């Protein structure tokens, strides 16, 4: 029997994991990645990866990990997948350990664990403060091994353009474009797995890499895939402010003892410790980000009147800092010129992670048959707020599930990828040619890069930590205006070789769709839950809103469906508090 063919789009942690699993299950695998896979955004994850290994004598357990994740997500996550995720965690850590990931060790030679936000047990395995990079490299190496064995083929510097659907709406592959030669081609497949990451860059300045535009997710959404929970965008409380990028300072800094404060009446005021005595500086990210927002924006107590607070490590042991947090100290020092061992760091919250994303079932199948999604681009596991160090875990775990399930699905197909009518690919390639032609001929008065800056400003000001319906509505109108002005913009580069501006135009157009999804979803949800906080409806409303926001593309505005209730098993919703023990 002919081998199944799987196309994986995206070469980050989730993409490479699904590729390895699919190849291991006997399929031929093509990986399409817009950057060399080793440079994927997964390298930016710093603090660690969670697994209830319980090696610290603290009585940690997988059940506690499950509870913390669901409670931390403000009860919006389906419970079956969260349980599966947490149960898989120790095995995932052991796999990485065998692959040679340089996890920090205890004196006894065991994997060391550190504390992270929203939990009481040390549960986070780490490799200095560059854990994502280290996990990413280990999979990059394994993929290279599979390439050498001809089990996987990589297409790096290839840009995903679209999915190819047959007349029954079943996904039969993708179209993609070589970022150097600009050649368009089809990649036929039995199943496609999207592992294209979050959409943080729709906000412009954020902690994400420049290519985290959400283009692929927006594209499949426009082709009919359901999008879920777009309003849930995580702001990381501690990033170094910068106009090109908000550079992340890991939650591990607080897990290792770092303290947040601002000067008040001439003395340090440790407001997180005062407001949340039970968790102190390691409250979850939404809680910490809101507290910082309140202190800076409402109480006007930012350091020197600026939009920053102190993150203080100066009291910690220098040797321990070097072994456990070196990566972030280096970043801070290189980009600000100040030594965080000697002076407190200045930080502010920044857009960091998309809890929402492409809707998937528990098998990571999207609403389009034959199309799977895994990693940050899907919406599963994290509910309304993700706990720190759960993302490297969910990226790996979901990649494993998607890789296996995609092959199982492929094996059940009646028509193999080699026997699909070639006309569907030709039609799609023509469509993409037309899109390129349209962009390359744009000759209006607007500069698309400046439009992108405007989008950044509007989203960052309004679809943010504190949200007001009126501002969101105005932002929605602004997005319409920007979209319309985009149609009157000009491309400067008309070259047929390595034309980066063409790719910029293609992704920017899609970002307007994501922006609209975030804003409309936020307007619709009339409650406050996790990262989504509206002072007009400040309480969580389980009666009405314990449901998934499912959105479908429509030319004017997304269509919403709230019929999918959150799956509640044995963990019943209770008020979520971090000022007292739970």
């Amino acid at each position, binding site marked *: 029997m002919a081998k199944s063919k799987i196309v994986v789009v995206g070469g980050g942690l989730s993409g490479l994991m699904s590729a390895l699993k699919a190849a*291991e299950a006997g399929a031929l695998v093509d990986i399409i990645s817009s*950057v*060399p896979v*080793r*440079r994927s*955004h997964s*390298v*930016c994850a710093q603090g660690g990866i969670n697994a209830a290994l319980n090696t610290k004598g603290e009585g940690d357990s997988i059940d506690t990990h499950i509870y913390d994740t669901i409670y931390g997500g403000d009860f919006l996550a389906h419970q079956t997948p969260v349980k599966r995720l947490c149960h*898989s965690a120790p*095995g995932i850590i*052991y*796999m990485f*350990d*065998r692959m*040679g*990931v*340089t*996890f*920090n*060790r*205890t004196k*006894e*030679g*065991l*994997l060391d664990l550190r504390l992270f936000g929203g939990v009481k047990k040390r549960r986070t395995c780490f*490799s200095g403060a*560059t854990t994502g*990079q*280290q996990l990413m490299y*280990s999979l990059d*190496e*394994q993929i*290279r*091994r599979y*390439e*050498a064995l001809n089990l996987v083929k990589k297409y*790096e510097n290839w840009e995903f353009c679209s999915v190819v659907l047959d007349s029954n709406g079943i996904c039969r592959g993708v179209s993609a474009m070589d970022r*150097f030669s600009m050649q368009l081609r089809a990649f036929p497949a039995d199943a496609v797995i999207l592992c294209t990451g979050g959409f943080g860059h729709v906000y412009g300045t954020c902690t994400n*890499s*420049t*290519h985290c535009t959400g283009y692929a997710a927006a594209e499949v959404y426009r082709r009919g895939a359901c999008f879920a929970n777009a309003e849930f965008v995580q702001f990381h409380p501690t990033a170094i402010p*910068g*106009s*090109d*990028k908000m*550079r*992340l300072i890991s939650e591990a800094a607080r897990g290792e003892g770092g303290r947040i404060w601002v000067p008040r009446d001439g003395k340090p005021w440790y407001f997180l410790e005062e407001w949340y005595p039970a968790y102190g500086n390691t409250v979850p990210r939404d809680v910490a980000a809101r507290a910082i927002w309140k202190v800076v924006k409402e109480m006007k107590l930012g350091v020197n009147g600026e939009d920053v607070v102190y993150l203080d490590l100066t009291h910690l042991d220098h040797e321990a800092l070097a072994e456990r947090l070196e*990566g972030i100290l280096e*970043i801070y020092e290189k*980009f600000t*010129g100040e030594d965080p061992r000697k002076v407190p760091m200045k930080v502010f919250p920044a857009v960091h992670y998309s809890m929402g994303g492409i809707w998937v079932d528990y098998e990571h199948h999207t609403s389009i048959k034959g199309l799977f999604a895994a990693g940050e681009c899907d919406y599963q596991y994290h509910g309304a707020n993700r706990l720190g160090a759960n993302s490297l875990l969910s990226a790996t775990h979901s990649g494993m599930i998607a890789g296996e399930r995609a092959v199982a699905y492929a094996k059940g197909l009646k028509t193999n990828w080699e026997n699909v009518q070639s006309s569907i690919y030709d039609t799609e390639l023509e469509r993409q040619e037309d899109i390129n032609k349209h962009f390359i001929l744009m000759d209006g008065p607007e*500069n698309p*890069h400046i439009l992108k800056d405007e989008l950044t400003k509007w989203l960052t000001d309004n679809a943010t930590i504190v949200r007001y319906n009126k501002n969101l509505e105005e932002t929605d109108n602004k997005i319409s205006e920007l979209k319309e002005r985009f149609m009157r913009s000009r491309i*400067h*580069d008309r*070259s047929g*070789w*390595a034309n*980066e*501006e063409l790719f910029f135009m293609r992704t920017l157009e899609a970002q307007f769709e994501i922006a609209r999804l975030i804003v409309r979803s936020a307007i619709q949800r009339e409650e406050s839950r996790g990262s989504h906080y509206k002072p007009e409806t400040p309480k969580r409303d389980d009666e009405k809103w314990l449901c998934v926001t499912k959105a479908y593309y429509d030319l004017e505005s997304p269509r919403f469906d709230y019929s999918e209730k959150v799956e509640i098993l044995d963990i019943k919703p209770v008020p979520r508090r971090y000022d007292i023990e739970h």
Partner: protein
Amino acid sequence: METVRLKIKRQDGPNDLPYWEEFEVPYVQRMNVVMALQAIEKKPVTIEGIPTVPVVWECSCLEEVCGSCTMIINGKVRQACSALVDSLEQPIVLEPMSKFPVVRDLRVDRSKMFEALKRIGAWVTVDGYHDIGPGPRMSPAQQQKAYHFSRCMICGCCCEACPQYNSRSPFMGAFAIGQTYLFNIHPIGKIEKEKRLDALMGEGGIADCGNAQNCESVCPKNIPLTEAIALIGWDTTIHTIKKFFR
């Protein structure tokens, strides 16, 4: 308004001749070279007022963990994201790395570095990607040692600075020796130690290193590459003797 001057070496494609263009962009606080290039995108006009096209370069993480934006800045190879304008003499001169084929402008093709990793078998061969229990124990000292090498971004700085590394030489580069060392000291990785040493004793291997030691001084992550070269050099000698007596 305060401005920043840039002089950029441009090249339209791999087979075109390079040319220079100068730009002046508005200064902002804590500006880095990436921000200067982004400012050109917003107003692609040279200092003489001639409209041109935005500069092509590669960037991704903007915090010096991905290695993408490596280029030559005022004569020194480094990442553009961590090159702060305040610490650079103007005009800031930007050139693509010279040891790799230019794709366009400041963007180069470093895929031969990844090919070298394939040749030396820079990975731990595992039985599968399923749960078969914990890996080997390791001391904190061993972990710290390995971590120095495992932070290599494959950015190419060591290759650019190396007098032995160029398009006419098969030398794989110092990073490849660093990665060999990393996998050869791993408790499971060392099972295939000799395979990697064989690869490093072949064409483009360790014998091509001229011991100029430039690699270590330009490495943005301070990876002790010369130490790896010395240790792997010793290992290859022993390996040769062993093979002789086999």
